[in-house]
């Protein structure tokens, strides 16, 4: 198995990892010919899962991948370590990464070339120990299947939501999220001592190019669909504001889950390559299960 690449967007890569850094100590990265996947699941004390993907071209150049498993490579590594390495590479001229073995142990090795004081090149090598997943382990990772959502809506800016949730979480453990096709979105907590509801309006209901099925057509625009989730899970999703997403879509499937699609924006690439149709450079998908009380 072989993987080699020149990392051209350390900042985007870092931000994606920073979004999920607090969820779990390790994360899984799946390398394929076209896409790089970031998976965080099996988190202690929660059923929250994050499945992210980004086009290879956004992160890498001179990308080579070969493996017996359909040219896919799955690795598990410490999120904080990759972030640290990528941060040290931000001011570099060239960054190359590859899968290697150091002292018999598999690692992801980074070669970072920077200039010290203008003239002198400095080469820094950083190795991160990794676990290469075999087929048995790979089968444990399956992206959650969710039914058709009852409603979806474009979220208000995450930074605003962040302050609100920060206060709500000290008052309750559960949060009810509701939205309708009229651009209205509500965050609600209710305990014996207090009830707090925050209303956002004039939001956009995106056209996700989904086949119009009867459940969505019949529903009156004003009717809300809601779901109760853990407030901590929601807070973890809100942390993805660090990525500075271009947009975030909230999808509610009543009594089942809430799914958030955080679309990655690439500031460094020219907009000529922008896919106007899907408006996606990549996305992080947060699957948060409902809590029924």
């Amino acid at each position, binding site marked *: 198995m072989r993987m080699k690449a020149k990392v051209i967007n350390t900042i985007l890569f870092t931000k994606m990892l920073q979004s999920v850094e607090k969820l779990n100590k390790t994360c899984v990265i799946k390398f394929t010919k076209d896409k790089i996947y970031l998976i965080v699941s099996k988190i202690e004390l929660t059923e929250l899962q994050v499945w992210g993907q980004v086009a290879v071209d956004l992160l890498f150049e001179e990308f080579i991948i070969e493996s017996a498993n359909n040219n896919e490579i799955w690795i598990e590594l410490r999120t904080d370590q990759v972030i640290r390495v990528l941060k040290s590479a931000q001011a570099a001229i060239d960054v190359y990464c590859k899968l290697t073995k150091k002292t018999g142990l598999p690692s992801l090795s980074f070669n970072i070339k920077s200039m010290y004081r203008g003239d002198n090149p400095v080469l820094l090598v950083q190795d991160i120990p990794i676990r290469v997943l075999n087929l048995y382990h790979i089968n444990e990772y399956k992206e959650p299947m969710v039914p058709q959502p009852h409603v979806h809506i474009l979220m208000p800016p995450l930074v605003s939501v962040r302050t609100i949730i920060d206060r709500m979480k000290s008052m309750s453990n559960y949060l009810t999220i509701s939205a309708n096709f009229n651009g209205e979105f509500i965050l609600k907590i209710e305990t014996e001592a*207090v009830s707090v*509801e925050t209303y956002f*309006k004039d939001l956009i209901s995106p056209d996700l190019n989904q086949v119009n099925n009867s459940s969505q057509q019949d529903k009156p625009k004003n009717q809300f669909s809601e779901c109760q989730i853990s407030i901590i899970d929601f807070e973890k999703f809100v942390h993805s504001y660090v990525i500075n997403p271009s947009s975030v879509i909230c999808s509610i499937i009543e009594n089942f889950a809430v799914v958030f699609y955080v679309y990655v924006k690439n500031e460094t690439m020219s907009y000529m390559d922008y896919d106007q149709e899907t408006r996606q450079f990549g996305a992080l998908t947060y699957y948060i299960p409902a809590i029924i009380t």
Partner: protein
Amino acid sequence: MESYSFKATLNNIKPLIILLKAIASSQNYNTNCLISNYGIKFSLQSSSTVEARAYIQKTYFQEYTLEINKNNDNQEIISQTQEPNDNVNIKENSEFSNNEINNSNKNSEIIFSLNINTLLDCLTIFGGFQLSNTNSIKNSRNDKSSNSDINIIDNSKSRTTLRMECNSSNKRLDLLLEDNGVITVCKLNTFEFNETSEIEEMFKQFPLINHLILNSKWLNDAFSTIDSSCDEITLRISNEIPYFEITATNVSGTIKIEYSKNPEVIETFNCKATSIFSYNYSLITSMFKALALSTKTQIKTNSKGVIQFQFMIPTIDTSVCFVDYIIIPSIE
């Protein structure tokens, strides 16, 4: 038993938040609220020896109405006359407004208690005002003699407005906050008002012997120099030099801070008799936040040594509000 209803709006919630943060502590004590025709008073007794009070006057509010609820019969009549019959409506309205004048007498009040931290969480839902101690953030040096070391960092990007509603019959305080088009509605359940305030009684019962007003900065500096490992602070006020002295002792030694009667330092000084009383240091620390926010401090001691510190805290522009602490001396 009459029931009252209260409605108020505030265009800028900053003064209210500052006031509440000045007396709040991390422990969740029940805070008494008293809504009257003068304004709202919050009082918090964090132990049997300290009581903190914060006052926000009615003049801060853009709208402030406290009125007796009409009894049920009349209320039904009012709701029925919502027809487009001008004569009836006008008559009803004038009756209502007459009643309003009669109803909002000086004794109208709504009392309850609630958790001050929950109230603060609700008020700061769109972003809080941090009271930080950093010296790196400088206040613009205007003519206000604000020498406090605590600067208020405004985290909210735009003004949050507040509408409060409270009805003494349903035991609930409703808050409606709006910020940039986003609306938050908070409904807080309230508890019984804690009737006993022995601390205030102990202060009022005995004659005042000392009264001084000084610039807060001097007091703040003094307390910053005193090490937190001290058990007690002793305050001595007398008509001989040194007029005002603060002493504290710990294992390493004793610190004595003396103030002269210099009017730049002590604006007002009235001393009827020498008083020397000690107070538990940990109780004094509870008032540091309010002290640091204030520009002036008024100190009053009674013959039993019960001391009241009243802090004048600037809020918006030239407006001020008050926070006071009453502390019982430690038993010799």
